[in-house]
């Protein structure tokens, strides 16, 4: 009975109700859209961190981890049978040893700071994005003195396929060392920092160049069930004295996860701004119907029933606004989940530290949609409470005296 009355009241000023509903709808749509986008960005960065930087689990020596920024190659791991035994686990799909080293590159003089990765091409091709992102030439073949350059790096060095790149650096034992490499391929990952500063060489070549035969500065593990990484890392740590880092503990990802709390505050602000419209609507409704409310009270309607009546009306606006917002937000987010949002312009400036891009695939989830929908209704009801409370507290005789 009360609900029907509330429903009829909804149509007493249809335009005003619709405007209030639309503001809720826009807020809910925006929140679902933003959450799906943030999720997409996180997935994108996680994917890049896992596939291009650390794997699901990264193993280094403890000393290497401590002084990582200085590339302490002398602390590289020995890839012995004993090492492989220590890290053995049925969940491991691939074991990718790598050597990461810093060099200065340049055509006329060595002045461009770059990051070299010596990788096992045959292993990496199973999970790395690299082979699919070769835009010129070919992927590495393993043992020849070849190099893969990022598109921007190749441009800066004025090198193309078949040209020679000279690398001068220091071995793990601080001896000056160098090598001539043939440019075999040029890649474009769409991540500014990586396309501009990174090159890949075969592990065998890196071992020879850096005096690290049979060693690797880090070993990336790819796991069958990535969510198990924390547990597997714990198990490997327990039976070895290596620094074992699951991707969930990666500094970049931990930092980005910590920013999610800030976004929650942002969502709340959007919703509160939107709900100020409904609060305003409820104030006007109460003001307009003071005599009517007084009359209802005079004929015996109790405070609780008045509260339910007015809350019902606000609830209908909140429900319809949230529902339409959830539907539109979901449609938009799911469309972008499959088609992606091209952010190549922004990702070109992405640093090595936060490797995102170039296409962000949104990641809406049923949890995001349902919680945002419920959140929308709850906040609507909450902000309506204050004006409604005023109406409920009104004495019938005072309400009847008002001249609106």
């Amino acid at each position: 009975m009360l609900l029907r009355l509330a429903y009829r009241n909804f149509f007493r000023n249809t335009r005003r109700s619709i405007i209030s509903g639309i503001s809720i709808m826009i807020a809910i749509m925006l929140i679902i859209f933003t959450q799906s986008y943030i999720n997409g960005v996180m997935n994108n960065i996680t994917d890049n961190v896992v596939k291009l930087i650390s794997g699901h689990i990264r193993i280094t020596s403890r000393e290497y981890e401590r002084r990582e920024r200085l590339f302490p190659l002398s602390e590289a791991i020995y890839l012995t049978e004993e090492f492989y035994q220590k890290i053995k686990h049925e969940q491991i799909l691939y074991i990718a040893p790598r050597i990461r080293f810093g060099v200065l590159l340049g055509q006329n003089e060595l002045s461009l700071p770059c990051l070299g990765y010596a990788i096992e091409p045959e292993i990496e091709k199973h999970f790395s994005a690299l082979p699919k992102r070769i835009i010129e030439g070919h992927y590495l073949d393993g043992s020849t003195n070849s190099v893969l350059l990022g598109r921007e790096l190749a441009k800066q060095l004025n090198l193309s396929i078949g040209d020679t790149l000279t690398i001068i650096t220091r071995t793990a034992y601080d001896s000056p060392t160098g090598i001539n490499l043939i440019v075999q391929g040029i890649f474009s990952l769409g991540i500014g920092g990586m396309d501009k500063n990174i090159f890949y060489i075969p592990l065998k070549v890196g071992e020879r160049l850096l005096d690290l035969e049979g060693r690797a500065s880090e070993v990336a593990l790819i796991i069958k069930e990535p969510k198990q990484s924390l547990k597997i890392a714990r198990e490997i740590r327990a039976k070895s004295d290596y620094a074992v880092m699951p991707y969930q503990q990666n500094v970049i990802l931990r930092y980005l996860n910590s920013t999610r709390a800030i976004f929650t505050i942002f969502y709340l602000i959007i919703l509160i701004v939107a709900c100020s419209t409904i609060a305003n609507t409820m104030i006007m409704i109460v003001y307009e119907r003071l005599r009517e409310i007084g009359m209802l009270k005079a004929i015996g309607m109790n405070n609780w029933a008045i509260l339910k009546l007015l809350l019902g009306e606000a609830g209908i606006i909140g429900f319809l606004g949230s529902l339409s917002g959830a539907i539109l937000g979901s449609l938009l987010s799911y469309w972008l989940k499959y088609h992606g949002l091209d952010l190549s312009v922004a990702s070109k400036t992405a640093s090595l530290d936060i490797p995102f891009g170039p296409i962000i695939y949104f990641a809406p989830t049923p949890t995001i949609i349902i919680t945002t929908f419920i959140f929308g209704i709850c906040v609507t009801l909450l902000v309506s409470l204050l004006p409604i409370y005023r109406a409920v507290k009104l004495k019938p005789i005072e309400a009847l005296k008002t001249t609106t």
Partner: protein
Amino acid sequence: MKKTIMLFCLIVNMMLALSGIEIIDRVDNNLVANTISYTAKIQLSIDGEIRTKELIGYVQGKDKAYLEFTAPARDKDTRFLKLDNEMWIYINEVEKATKIAGHMLRQSFAGTDFSYEDVTSNQRFKEQYDIKLIGTDTIFNRVSYQLELIAKLKNVTYYRRMLWIDAEYFYPLKEELYAKSGKLMKEITISDFKKIGNKNFPTKIRMANKLRRNTYTELVLENVKLDVVIPERIFTKAYLERK
């Protein structure tokens, strides 16, 4: 007794007061030569682990230097050539000289605590710094003059140097090298020298880069020849790239 008398004479001599400029002139006369040629052993200590390298070096004036590693086998035939402000490196496998960027000359030389500039430097302090005599001090049981040098040229690597100059032989017993920010960057101690002609030339130099942890490099110079003629062809790219 004899020692005390000598020390007394020395102090009296010092009190007869050499100025900072006069002291640094004598130091410059000892350290700087028209040409220097030497063989050297470098002992690099990192966390207590010692790595030894050997090299030969030729220096002419302040603008020309040639260095070549002779041992260990891994480093053999790695060569460096400094011409004016440019530094070139030759590595056997690369088979051509590659230029090292100007700012890199202040970076570590072959992983040691010395920079490229440190090992090729042959310039008078007096040309680069304003000199201030702080006083006298006793360091490593030697009476010394303590000098403060503040850079008067813009492109000097170390803005400020504190020098403890042996009051008898006029070579630095110890040097502290500071950045403009006041941060101590390096510390040099010289524990031996050789009298060559009229110069007291340092032959055992220990450098500790204070920006690195637990490292030092000891450079022991042997077969030092000063002011001899060094063939001009040594300071050419052709010589650097020779097979």
